[in-house]
């Protein structure tokens, strides 16, 4: 398994989200609900029980008016590689039911709700709050059942769910490639719903290992950072920001803490 990581053909699908472009419009969240059959209920303001596979957080620099700045940060599952790319994200390591695993060929961290029995260890282990628990059976009122996407199974009460990078779209793209006798799928063929919908094009998605994909270059931008890099979770979601306070907030720096040498260099070398 380890050798596979070094393989050129091994894909590592990931995202680069440009926070300088994100206006917090919420299109990614809604596109995700619609694509992934995420249900809704009467009150969604308790964010602890609100199912969101991608959620936009608002950061502020905390300075008084008029020096205040705000920044929106969309947060899907970070699809961690784990340190040294061992394929053991925090959640996968703790799951007693093998309901979540790390796919070596794509780098996607899966979640199989039918396998999950709802112990929520993974939620405790995830430093990003990317996992959500179904406290209730979902209800689709009126005729809203009609818009459900057949490519994504609906979930039930008592299981954990999370962003899958719209893996069903990868499966569909692969099917098409098989039919056309292609080995590889095109960059444009597999894009998650959030990246497709984003009106400011803040979300770029692709294979981080593939130099032809836009994310390959973007992830090496001087503006790039990842969330809580110091935990060595090695996420495949990169963020771009030209603002130092945003980059520092991304790794939860204390006010007077100096920036340590980049973890990224350590991990990438």
């Amino acid at each position: 398994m380890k050798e596979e990581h070094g393989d050129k053909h091994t894909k590592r699908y990931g995202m680069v989200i440009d926070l300088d472009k994100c206006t917090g419009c919420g299109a990614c969240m809604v596109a995700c609900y619609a694509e992934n059959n995420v249900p809704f209920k009467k009150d969604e303001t308790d964010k602890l029980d609100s199912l969101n596979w991608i959620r936009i957080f608002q950061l502020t620099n905390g300075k008084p008016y008029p020096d205040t700045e705000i920044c929106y940060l969309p947060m899907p599952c970070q699809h961690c590689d784990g340190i040294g790319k061992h394929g053991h994200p925090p959640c996968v390591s703790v799951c007693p039911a093998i309901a979540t695993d790390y796919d070596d060929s794509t780098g996607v961290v899966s979640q199989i709700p039918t396998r999950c029995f709802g112990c929520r260890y993974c939620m405790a282990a995830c430093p990003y709050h990317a996992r959500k628990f179904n406290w209730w059976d979902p209800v689709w009122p009126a005729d809203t059942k009609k818009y459900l996407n057949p490519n994504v199974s609906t979930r039930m009460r008592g299981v954990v769910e999370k962003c899958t990078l719209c893996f069903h779209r990868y499966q569909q793209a692969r099917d098409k490639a098989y039919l056309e006798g292609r080995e590889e799928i095109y960059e444009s063929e597999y894009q998650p719903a959030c990246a497709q919908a984003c009106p400011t094009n803040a979300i770029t998605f692709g294979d981080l290992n593939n130099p032809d994909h836009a994310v390959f270059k973007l992830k090496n931008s001087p503006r790039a950072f990842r969330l809580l890099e110091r935990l060595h979770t090695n996420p495949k979601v990169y963020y771009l920001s030209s603002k130092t306070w945003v980059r520092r907030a991304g790794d939860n720096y204390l006010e007077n803490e100096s920036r340590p040498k980049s973890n990224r260099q350590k991990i990438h070398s």
Partner: protein
Amino acid sequence: MKIDRRSFISLGVGVVAGTTLTPVPWKLMDDISIWTQNWPWTPVPKEGADTYKTSVCTLCPGGCGIQVRKIMDRAVKIDGLPEHPINRGTLCPLGLSGLQFLYGPSRVKAPMKRVGKRGEGKWQEISWDEAVSAVTKKLKELREKEKPHSVAWVAGTDKGTVPRLIGRFLTAYGSPNFIRPPSVHDAYELAVYLMQGQEGAVGFDIENADHVLSFGTGLLQGWGAPVRMLNIYGEQHDSRKIVQIETRLSDTAAKADQWVPINPGTEGALALGIAHVMIKESLYDQSFINQSVFGFEDWTDDHGTRHIGFKTLVREDYSPETVAEKTGVPKATIEKLARRFARADKPIAISGRGEGLLPGSLSECMAVHSLNALVGNINKPGGVSVTSEPEYAKWPEVNIDMTASRGMQQPRVDGAGGSKYPNARYLLHRLPEVINSAKGESPVQALFVSDANPLYTLPNTKATKAAFDRIPFLVSFSSFMDETASHSDYILPNHVFLERYEDVPTPSASVQPIIGLAKPVVRPVYNTRHVGDVVLQVAKSLGSFVEKAFPWKDYQGYLKSALKDYWDQLEEKGFVKVKNAKDFPWANRFNTATGKFEFYPSARNQPSKNDKKALPNFSPVPIEGKPEQYPLVLMPYDAMRLTSGDVGNPPFMTKTIDDTVLKGQTVFVEINPATARKIGASEGERATVATPRGRAKVRLHLFEGIAPGVIAMPKGFGHTAYSKYLAGKGVNFNDLIGPISDPLSGLNTAWGIRAKIDRA
């Protein structure tokens, strides 16, 4: 041999031992676990062949192209149409929620007749024939009483074939009262009409501009065609500077290259201060000002009277020092803003607050538009231009009978175009006041509402409701159980945009004329009918003159005959870029009396005899409330995740809303921590906001981005209708504010209201 208890225990042990050696436990365990994964109440969406249908979204005036993914006969997802020039494959949260409107819980499923009291929610389902004949009966009765002008129709827009069909119907019937809900475009249109003599929508070629000076406009919060604006922002991030002048750190201000905080309501003064610096430092476009404008320099009229020009006015009254004092923007900043704006290659100044549902002050709009004239960036690529609606749907004039003719000669019920407000075209916000102050019976005897929800969107909800209660016959064509529909006598539900044909003319604030065509993507889910078809059926049952004006069998036939050559292309692609559109707005000439751009609107409908009032100037209309009683200023704000217009927020969008905006059913009011400290309030605390118009229970959110002394509240909450996923959440801002008519234009200018906070 005796069989005893132990024998049976033994038998049991044998059975257990034997069973473990059979597949029974293992197979059952497997089957039971599969069984528990397939509860009958967990839906399993049916698979099938995928198809994609192209159409146009009509949920806002943006007119984005969409492609709807279908599995068999169900629509399962709406995505942006990649080749559409407005949204280029992407979409906003509202458009993405489109299927919740189609299949959602707030739809009206059949024509309904009220059986209880108004607003009580007791309905009886009726047939379409009954519905049409009820409307016809009322209309016949009013015509027989020689009162056709007491009929009014509020339609969501005045562009496209459906509003024209309604307008034509009203003309043939004899009512001048076609009313469109207010929008910032009312002020734009009036400003360019006065200053340029041109009639039409105002387009901003932001794609080609390199500097945008926005006076509080919610460029990234739903203004114009929202997805177009977000696209431009994201894709050409580095090629354009956006300067946002706004009291609150809005999403637009946060994303702008520069945020200029300003005292609320003083945007017009800042525009003139910037003009002052540009003129003083000779930073304006000399050739344009010298050749193509009137009223810049002082001038003498035919009677020998001396008039001052814009230059003198601005130099005398709007020095940076004066303006700095009024606006709170430092003098140095004003100078810098002016220099940067003037030195940019293609600068554009935009006025109007938020997403653009408030018309605002005409003088402020003219003051900001003056900046566009100073840089000569009018009717040019990368500038501001007047675009006319694509020319289609032209039919012979309606032949009207005597009754209709007498009705048409009556003044409009909202006072637009009358002696007081000669320039205004629609003044819906005045309707409640007109009805409530009428002695005797209401001047509106029958009100029809389509694609609009005035009972929610008009300021001063209480007065609006009182006025509507005085209208004896109220018909809503809404597809949804919105506030207006739930208070009407009849609901004749229209198809949702995914079930009907309808043309969508040029997207709001766009320069490129585009016609879009919304198409039936799925068969109607419920027993609804196209409002165009209902109009035609009513016209036919009215007989005689009315009927003759409508030679079409049905709405689709009418639409086809209107779109003629465009039809095939529209059917196939979903949209058409109108030919030669690229050059046509640029070739426009100023159509004023002088043939020039007029700082001083000379001849037609001159707004004032006083020079300083006739020129673009800063004459703020004070907001309601006494500062002693109401120490704070309450302003609304618009957000992309919350619709505040006639379309209620869909459940998906409400789900995206932060818990610092809404918690449970309570909305947060933003307050500066310094202001909060003064009243001893803390984060999340419950409080009551009181204004001269009403009170509301809220929570407080301490936010550094709101100016001290100002509080802000989102628009779009406080619905009383729709479904449980929207109703009862938060407060309708319109409950707390009343309209203020601009003395110049009659348009509503109430951008805020004075308020106080009572801690709970």
